[in-house]
């Protein structure tokens, strides 16, 4: 039996040395160098494989076997080490990486809706769930629809309630309220029951100031049917107000006057700025006027095509600008049509 080939010893030495060195490696780069050194083409292991043919026949299987074992051992160790190195590298990366979180973010291009679109949608959606549908009508109205058919004849004292813009066409005005839509919707729907929301731009001849505008939105609520009562009006409007402001806001109805409703009422909600204590928003009264309402006047029902002995209904009118002003502490009504981006972008 000839002497064991020297390669076997070399393999053992190489394995020991390689494993020892591998245990020290911390980074990817030396790991690759180690791989080239101990598993590359000119490594001891690979040389051992290529030397098999030169070995004496009896040792050839042994050299092959040992080389294989060493190769597998080194590969396994490499794999394990690589895992550790990668893991350590990730840990280091995570530990080292930092952004200045206080630097401003990249600005996305944003757009937005006008605050009055937003508040109108809120109003519509609350009423929609109670079966009220939106009905729009015109801004430039006949005196007949804006006044006469609403039980406001010419020279009637009630006309003082509206400072009207007149048009150079006789008998034509800019609507002073959305109420003419009541007549239009009634004439279209009679004798069906009605639950309608009538939004729209209205106009009044006034000095523009932080509190009053010549152009403003109004939303009218109209319900007509055979069994509609003052109590239903209270319930519906209270339900609306509670959803718009908050669930336990207190409200009160006090008598008022509108020519197209009778009895008429003004609805106040408890001032949510001061919780009823009295502040500048509620002018010290603890209450905020939020809408006018009432039972549809028999003359109006008749003009709309409904027999007042059979049908009844209620109507209410509110100012979405006022609602926004209260909800968002807007102190100048001129902001709405002023369209300053700095204002609009806040909503």
């Amino acid at each position, binding site marked *: 039996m000839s002497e064991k080939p020297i390669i076997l010893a070399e393999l053992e030495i190489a394995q020991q040395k390689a494993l020892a060195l591998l245990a020290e490696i911390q980074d990817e780069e030396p790991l690759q160098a180690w791989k080239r050194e101990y598993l590359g083409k000119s490594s001891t292991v690979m040389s051992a494989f290529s030397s098999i043919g030169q070995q004496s026949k009896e040792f050839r299987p042994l050299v092959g076997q040992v080389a294989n074992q060493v190769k597998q051992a080194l590969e396994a160790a490499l794999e394990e080490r690589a895992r550790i190195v990668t893991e350590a590298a990730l840990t280091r990366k995570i530990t080292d990486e930092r952004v200045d979180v206080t630097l401003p973010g990249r600005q996305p291009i944003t757009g*937005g809706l006008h605050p009055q679109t937003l508040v109108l949608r809120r109003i519509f959606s609350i009423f929609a769930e109670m079966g009220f*549908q939106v009905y729009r009508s015109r801004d430039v109205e006949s005196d007949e629809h804006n006044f006469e058919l609403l039980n406001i004849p010419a020279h009637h*004292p009630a006309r003082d309630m509206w400072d009207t813009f007149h048009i150079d066409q006789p008998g034509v005005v800019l609507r002073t309220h959305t109420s003419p839509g009541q007549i239009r919707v009634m004439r279209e729907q009679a004798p069906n029951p009605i639950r309608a929301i009538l939004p729209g731009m209205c106009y009044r001849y006034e000095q523009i100031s932080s509190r009053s505008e010549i152009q403003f939105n109004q939303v009218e609520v109209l319900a007509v049917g055979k*069994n509609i009562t003052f109590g239903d009006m*209270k319930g*519906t409007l209270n339900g609306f107000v509670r959803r718009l402001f908050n669930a336990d806001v207190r409200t009160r109805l006090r008598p008022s006057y509108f020519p197209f409703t*009778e009895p008429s009422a003004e609805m106040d909600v408890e001032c949510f700025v001061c919780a009823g204590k009295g502040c500048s928003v509620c002018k010290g009264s603890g209450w905020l006027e939020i809408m006018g309402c009432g039972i549809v006047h028999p003359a109006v029902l008749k003009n709309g095509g409904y027999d007042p002995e059979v049908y009844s209904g209620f109507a209410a009118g509110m100012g979405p600008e006022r609602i926004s002003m209260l909800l968002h502490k807007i102190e100048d009504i001129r902001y709405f049509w002023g369209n300053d981006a700095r204002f609009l972008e806040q909503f």
Partner: protein
Amino acid sequence: MKIPLSWLKDYIDLDLSLEELARTLTMVGLEVEVINVIGLPLPENTGRQEFKFTGLAWNPEKFIVAQIDEVMPHPDADRLTLCRLHDGIQEWVVLTGAPNLFPYKGMGTLEQPLKVAYAREDAILYDGHKPGYELTKLKRTKIRGVESFSMVCSEKELGISDEHEGVIILDSDAPTGTPLVDYMGDAVIEVAILPNMIRDASMVGVARELSAVTGKPLKVPSRKVTSTGPKIDDLAAIEINDPNLNPRFVLGLVQGLSPKPSPYWVQRRLRLAGMRPINSIVDATNYVMLETGEPLHAFDYDVLIQRAGGKAPTIITRAVTKGENLTTLDDVERPLDQHTILVCDTAGPLSLAGIMGGLESEVTETTRNVLLEGASWNFINVRRTSSRLHLNSEAGYRFGRGVHPALASWAVDLGLERMAAWSGGTIAQGLVDNYPQPPLDPLVSISVQDVERKLGVTIPAKQIAVILTRLEFVCKVSGDVIEAQTPPHRLDIGEGVIGKADLMEEIARIYSYNNIPETNLADELPPQRNNLELANEEKIKDILAGLGLQEVITYRLTSIERETRAYLLGQTPDPENYVRLLNPIAPERSVMRQSLLASVLEVLEKNARIRERLAFFEIGSLFIQEEENNLPVEPRKLVIGMSGKRNIPIWNQKDTGNLDFYDLKGVLEELLEKLHLEAVAYQPTEHPSMHPGKTAQILVGQTPIGVLGELHPRVKQNYDFLTPAVYVAEIDLEALLPLIPLRFESQPVSVFPPVLEDIAIIVEEAVPADRVEALIRQTGGKLLADVRLFDVYRGDRIGAGKKSLAYSMTYQALDHTIESGESTALRNKIVRRLERELGAVLRDN
């Protein structure tokens, strides 16, 4: 209207606190605006305030009824006096400068002591020498060597009025030593009178409402002084020309009186109610008007006799005949029109009926005999006259809303009594009363079921009758039906179904809105339908906001000049088509807009100095007067305006330049895509506001829906923009909205891998890009899943007048993997088609 509490209490016993009273008034429809306390304590701060309180509370320890026993001269100052005064406990010497005490100076001990309002040291009161109402505390000082620590008060110092000329001299029976608040503490409740409640612009009216709610009896005043003069019948006569204008006219006469200052309590009440005391005659008419709601007018009887040539005057009422003028007692000569009603005598006009007296027959200091008028007028005529002449008087305010003629004789009676009591004189017997047209005073029947049906609450017939009776309706109850006769002081109750609604309001008011239970609508729902137009408009707003645009809402009132700015010279909207205001508030808001573009350009201009990137849109109406004597058409439009930077450069984001035509076009493409519109095409077009080479018309199928493009540089010069170019789109929503499909179909997504390939072709410059893409798509058919133009090149390498278009193509099938042979074949087919139809050349580099 201002209601002094003390005055109100003449007509009803009240045991309510000020707050309860205010709440009660508000809940019957007399909304309390403010409560001004005149001495009475302010409510305790409970943390919940229902009403606004102002005014001064008089501390009962500090403000006392005192008596001045002697007014002595000041040793060193002529304009000051020293008063020997007793406050019920002890005697003091008090320094004053009140001119109304001078007459008593040096008279020694006064036989009849002067009763005054005395403020002790440390009293808190208003500073009489400062303008407005400023609180001050009485401190011990020395004035001209005399120590002063208390004072005799003026009305201003006590917050009664702004009178500071002298100190208050109380009536002689004022009890010395009593706290002032107990003697004359008061409060003025200011209420808003609704247009249909003019009957309550009076103390009795307000008391009647309170009586209805509280059940306390109403004490209606009536004349107590008897007539001792001659019979009036031969002393005056009345002729009414038109009972429609003047349903009733009443005259009474007081002889031998002389005007003087009214008693202090009368002056004080008038001042608290907001009227200036004049003299005992005029004050009597005003007092009775505030008391009853019926305005009275006093004529100098001697002037009338003189005008009648020494005979008994005849009062004639009639409408103005053409060209008449009258000088009213404010010394203004007023031209009159035929709606005005005049009170005349045989010599001509005397006064504007129901509004204001004439100068000539006015009561003066020398008046000794007064003919007193109480009447009723057609409210429409009174309103027309006062609004045409801009004459706002207390009488016109009441008559312009309708005063029941029944009040006239009652008020004249009360007026005669007060005039005689305050000015001396004797009352002639009887009244001259011409009452040709009493109003109807409807009889209305209402049932428990009517009330139930409208109010949603069951109120027993008896209770309904009680409510109405307290409001002085005369009621007959039979079963569930109440027949109510309207009382002769109100004109606001109609007949039949209207009257029923009027009564309903009375019942609800007095029953209290608060007591009507809240219910949910249980009535039949109407047929449900969508408002598609609105829904689509709102969808468009959402899409545009999502694409980075800010919605605006602008004035629909504008001026022709403002709109002209948005157009090239000579291309403005037809001025004939503007809806013009007859009474604009300002020239810049004198017409309704015809251009939404002009509105949005103004917003861009305004924000150009505020933001570097401008991207706005508005949806709104235009107003176009197409035909005379018809309502204008109000088409809806969408306008988009963009200008400035594409994005805002910041530290980690570089400047990507200015917005251009294609940014705007991208917005529109995305909008129309999200609305699921098909067959959208863009064609060069012209527009009176836009750049001729950078404007496109948008077509959906064959329908033009609007234009987009660059604002014409000459139009841009009309605006104060900082930015290089402005891009605008104007969309006709009347055209667009009906095209939006109700539903759309989604496309399946392929699970087979795509084949990607780029091709570049060279075409003549004149070949439109959308034509190329359309051909590619058409030829590629279903297998061509996507085409994207990723480069456009012009330059030397391809020669002048040509452009290179590079497309990235995606081939993908739903049912198989596309092999390279298949994709090559398709590509060749596309290229051949482009070569054949557009003369394109495949570019290979």
